[in-house]
């Protein structure tokens, strides 16, 4: 995959997750950051840092992005969420508008 087609999502601890732009755009917040005219710094570097989101949560969110794309294309599977992550994940999802 070319570098222009990917986005780097960075967690609070500095873990980096490289996902395709299409997947990241499942999040309305990230979509706004990457597409708004005038340009956030995020759009130029293809990097978004989330100082509030920890690595396990961000990993789960990336999984959700790809799951959501699959779901939209007709492959309906169940998305498993570990019980201990639910609350944190809920808040992150709320922030990311997914």
């Amino acid at each position: 995959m070319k570098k222009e087609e990917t986005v780097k999502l960075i967690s609070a601890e500095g873990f980096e997750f490289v996902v395709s732009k299409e997947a990241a755009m499942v999040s309305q917040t990230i979509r706004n950051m990457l597409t708004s005219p005038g340009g956030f710094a995020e759009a130029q570097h293809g990097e978004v840092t989330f100082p509030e989101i920890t690595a396990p949560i961000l990993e789960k969110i990336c999984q959700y992005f790809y799951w959501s794309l699959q779901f939209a294309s007709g492959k309906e599977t169940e998305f498993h969420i570990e019980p201990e992550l639910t609350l944190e994940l809920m808040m992150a999802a709320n922030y990311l508008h997914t």
Partner: protein
Amino acid sequence: MEKKQSKRKTSPSLANLCIESASSSREIVETWRRQKQLISKKRGNKKKMEKKQSKRKTSPSLANLCIESASSSREIVETWRRQKRTLERLPSHLADALFRRLRHRRLLYPSLLEVFQHCVEEVDLSGESSVDAEWMAYLGGFRNLRILKLSDCRSLNNHALWPVTGLDGLKELDLSRCSKVTDAGIKHVLSIPSLEKLFASETGMSAEGVKALSYFTSLRTLDLGGIPVTDKALGSLQSLAGLEYLDLWGSEISNNGAALLENFPRLNFLNLAWTKVTVLPHLPSVTTLNMSNCTVHALFDGESKTRIPLSKLLLTGATIVDPSEVLRNVEASCMTFLDISGSSTCNFSFLVNMRRLEHLDLSSSNMSGSLIDDLAHVGDNLRYLNLSKTKITSEAIALLAGHVSNLETLSLSYTAIDDASLPYIGMMTSLRTLDLSHTGIQGFLSDKTFSLIELQNLSILENLNLEETLVRDEALYPLAFFRELKCLYLKSNNLSDIALQALSSPLPNLQILGFRGAVLTNSGLLLYSPSPVLRTLDLRGCWLLTADVISLFCKHHPRIEIRHDVNSAIGSSSFQNPSKGPRARHGGEKLLEVPILVGMNSAIGSSSFQNPSKGPRARHGGEKLPEVPIFVDERIKYVREELLDLRFSPLSNLTLQGREMLPTILRKESDA
């Protein structure tokens, strides 16, 4: 700023401009009239577009998935409930949604409430009979609570209500029908002066308790329905100048008390049903008025000549002495909702000026064929018209037909109309709901042609009721025209297998089919092929059907809930749940139990059917079923010949794959 914004007009959309221009004069209409192809094409395009859109499904949002997952079982609740610091930071709309979900799944219990005390702003526990002092003690700690709904909490008493004293941010409190709450309980509430909405209908309050409510100076909504409020008590509430909504049904208010209502300058909703009030003073701000079951002499009586722009008026069962006199001070052109069902008036001339009326209920009134002219004037805005139990005739419908082109709901049940009215009803092309039950409709016109065919222009009809009419089997064939029909109700002993066959394939959107009291045989039911979206099939009163055939039908169509006298709740019992959606895992194991369980519908009905947490996640109910202690072996019911016949039924074709598939009780039997 606001003025500026409202001044700045948005331009009308291009599509609207086109419609405006296309309909501006007859000549212009003629120019596009011939472009029939284009019109039909456009419609086609739209349909295609819709199809495309519906194909691309959007996945459920992650926040919703999390809420679902967090409230899926008690064990899972235990894993997250200790994350106190996260819970404190939870945004209130998420916390409220999670709280609602937990309640819906019946996973809430008093000590769990504690974890929500910082984040939840809205609590709705209406109808929870378990809510008592313990629950309330925890709720008292909810610092940010704005809305607390406790209606129908039967265990709630005065003592239990004490903790609300600490909820100083509370804006809305609903105690409706908490009959154990009396004046002493309301005293606890008095310490919340910021309260804006209080619902206390049918509580144990007395007139004395009502007087105390004068402390709530910010109150905007006050519901005191069913409480014996006296004129004197109402008088002491005059400090509530901001009151907008006042419900006093069934109170002891008389005309003297009604006169005091002038002291509430912002009042826009007023309910005085079942009171002794006959004369209402001039209340310029009122837009909704309910004086059902009162004797009405005058509305908005007073020296002022300005008419009241009332939009909604309910006079159900009221005795109206002289309607034109009563409505003299009402601005007829503002009225959108009028319910005068069951009232005794014989004069409907007041309807003439009500040109904006959308909802009109005249059921059980003296409306008759000779008075229909007044109704015809009401005109194009009418969406809902109820004429059931009136002396209306087919001729009257003919007079009405051209005047109500936007009518969406029409009820003519229990009237003397017959098939001659159907061509005229067929002209009301916006109809979605049509009730023709208990009428003389036969399904044939005088020249022996099908009469229901006259309704074929009702292309968006969704609900049709033909119960207790004289319609026979073959007369139902024209129903095939109603492609959008979702609910169809039939009840007549003139119907047989043929009628059900006629309804088999042509109605693709049918969700509910009532086929009651018909002479339907077992084979007739098995030959029926329902629409793919059918949810409910009501076969009550089809006495020829036997339980085993119904259970066979259920097995073939597991989505469909069957209602029948021998098994009133069979369809939605748990054995069909496994096949719902992605949770079908247990489906295979259940199959064998089906014919046996059918015999004990009473047990099913009382256990899982009434479980309020039913729905796609009712899996737990399903798993419990084999443990139901009562067990009737259905085989004893059959004679040898019948059992031999059953060998060829599709149910018997299942091969046993090991003994664990048998219900426990049968396993024991084979051990022995």
